[in-house]
């Protein structure tokens, strides 16, 4: 450790990785998507005219090759009869909905699929709900003219996935989520140094534990802040007392109490020992707060209250190429800050000792 904090390669690596994360994470475009389909409900036996608003799309450039479907399930879909393009992001399409649907449900949901060679294919699930007057699946099968989706295109180039509701805020994954992961790594390191202190009783371990805890607290605060900004765009409010927001706030309060505790003891050895004990205790208390309790209660946060967690198709291979470096980058930068704090407290100790010597003479 003592050698490592004088070397600069890992600090440079951290800066480079974070530069890469900021540049790539903020500049790579999103995949084309569909932000609006209106009207969102219809009845059978009519010509259905839909206004479509795309995102990052090039409807005007691909006007002749544009194909749009209403998809009922994996086998059945309807092709649009007329497409009228009004600019790169807007189009008006007409479908003919048969009198009967091959479905036993009164209200059937349809996904909207758009495909063209420039943008590739994009889907909006549950775009239109179609209500049947009378349910007759046999007759529905007879009148259904199936136009299957074939020859879908794949968009060329590097893009991030488009998700409804999330939109551009999907980039916050590289900041919010990776800041939390880096915070966990830093807090684990702080706990390891606290254990080391209790085993060896050397004051430098205490300085490390305190430096790492303050950096972890900073990361946690930033994680909470980026989470609140994300919540403003997706949940509609910066702070909605969601269980996840509440418990993480409490977890950060536990760590803030660590510094109150430190300031309560004037004697160095006593302060180091008791705060090491409390640091281990705080980490153990953090686990149920952040990872167990939110899972049991209703929550808006992904991964809690039955919501899907991050992973699977939400984190595709392009995002992984930015997300994992982001975690490493934040960890390296925070270790750098922690090592500066550590050196500052060593210097402070040295200066106080010197002052004490001069004072006695």
């Amino acid at each position, binding site marked *: 450790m003592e050698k490592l904090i004088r070397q600069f390669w890992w600090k440079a690596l951290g800066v480079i990785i974070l530069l890469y994360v900021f540049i790539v994470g903020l500049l790579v475009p999103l995949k084309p998507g569909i932000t609006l389909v209106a009207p969102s409900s219809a009845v059978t036996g009519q010509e259905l005219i839909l206004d479509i608003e795309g995102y990052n799309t090039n409807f005007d450039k691909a006007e002749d090759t544009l194909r749009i479907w209403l998809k009922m399930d994996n086998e059945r879909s309807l092709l649009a009869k007329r497409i009228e393009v009004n600019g790169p992001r807007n189009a008006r399409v007409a479908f003919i909905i048969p009198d009967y649907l091959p479905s036993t449900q009164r209200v059937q949901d349809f996904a909207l699929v758009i495909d063209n060679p420039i943008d590739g294919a994009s889907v909006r699930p549950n775009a239109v709900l179609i209500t049947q007057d009378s349910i007759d699946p046999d007759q529905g099968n007879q009148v259904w003219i199936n136009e299957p989706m074939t020859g879908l295109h794949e968009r060329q180039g590097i893009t991030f996935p488009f998700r409804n509701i999330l939109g551009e805020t999907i980039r916050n994954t590289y900041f919010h989520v990776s800041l939390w992961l880096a915070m966990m790594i830093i807090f684990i390191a702080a706990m390891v140094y606290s254990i080391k202190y*209790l085993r060896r009783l050397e004051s430098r371990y205490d300085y490390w534990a305190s430096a790492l805890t303050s950096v972890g607290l900073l990361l946690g605060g930033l994680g909470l802040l980026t989470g609140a900004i994300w919540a403003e765009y997706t949940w509609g409010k910066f702070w909605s007392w969601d269980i996840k927001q509440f*418990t993480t706030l*409490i*977890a950060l*309060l*536990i760590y803030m*109490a660590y510094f*109150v*505790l430190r300031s*309560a*003891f004037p004697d160095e050895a*006593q302060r180091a*020992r*008791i705060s*090491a*004990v*409390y640091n*281990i*205790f705080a980490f*153990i*208390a953090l686990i*149920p*707060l952040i990872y*167990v*309790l939110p899972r*049991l*209660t209703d929550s808006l946060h992904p991964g809690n209250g039955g919501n899907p967690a991050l992973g699977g198709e939400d984190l595709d291979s392009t995002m992984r190429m930015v997300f994992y470096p982001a975690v490493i980058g934040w960890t390296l930068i925070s270790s750098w800050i922690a090592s500066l704090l550590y050196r500052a407290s060593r210097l402070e100790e040295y200066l106080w000792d010197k002052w004490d010597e001069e004072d006695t003479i």
Partner: protein
Amino acid sequence: MLQQTMRLLWRDWILEWRTRYALSGIVLYVLATIVLVYSALIDIQPKIWNAIFWVIILFAAISAIVKSFVQESQSRQLYYYNLVHPLALLLAKIIYNTTLLFVLSLLSWAALSLLTGNPVKETGLFVLAVFLGSMGLSIAFTFVSAISAKAQNSATLMAILGFPVIIPILLTLVKIGANALRLIRDTSISSDILILVAINLVLLSVAILLYPFLWRD
């Protein structure tokens, strides 16, 4: 060690019984709160009853447990240090506080019921919640009071250290309490109880592991 624990436990009871200072003070506090709440609200809804009950238990726990290590003088601590195993001391305090808090909770439940009627529909579940709750609060506050007893103004420090730690316990307790009062119907109530037991066990094992580092001064 078990024998030492029992001796210390017995000694704590005797000391308490001789003065009856803590016990009567807390009983007075509980009764005063209940009377105040009752005269302010008169008609207490089960929802409010649930909240008030756990608030009373929380503050009863703080005022009962803050004394457990703070009341012991430095010289007496040194005396213990020479005589007994640290875990015996910690376990004696935890068991004593759990019992005290459990009895106090049942007393306040009885007093609340006397004044406002008993809204608890599932008595067994509620008694279980009260027991696990007094155990969790005792473990957390006993450990925190062991930490803060070393500092100058320990009561403030104990509040700062203790409150965030007991929030998960209180959240689960309020939920189980609402179930016992049939305010909400939760099919996963057994997992809530398991969570409470798990939190208690984790806090207890952390306290047992770390206390030997704390006490020698």
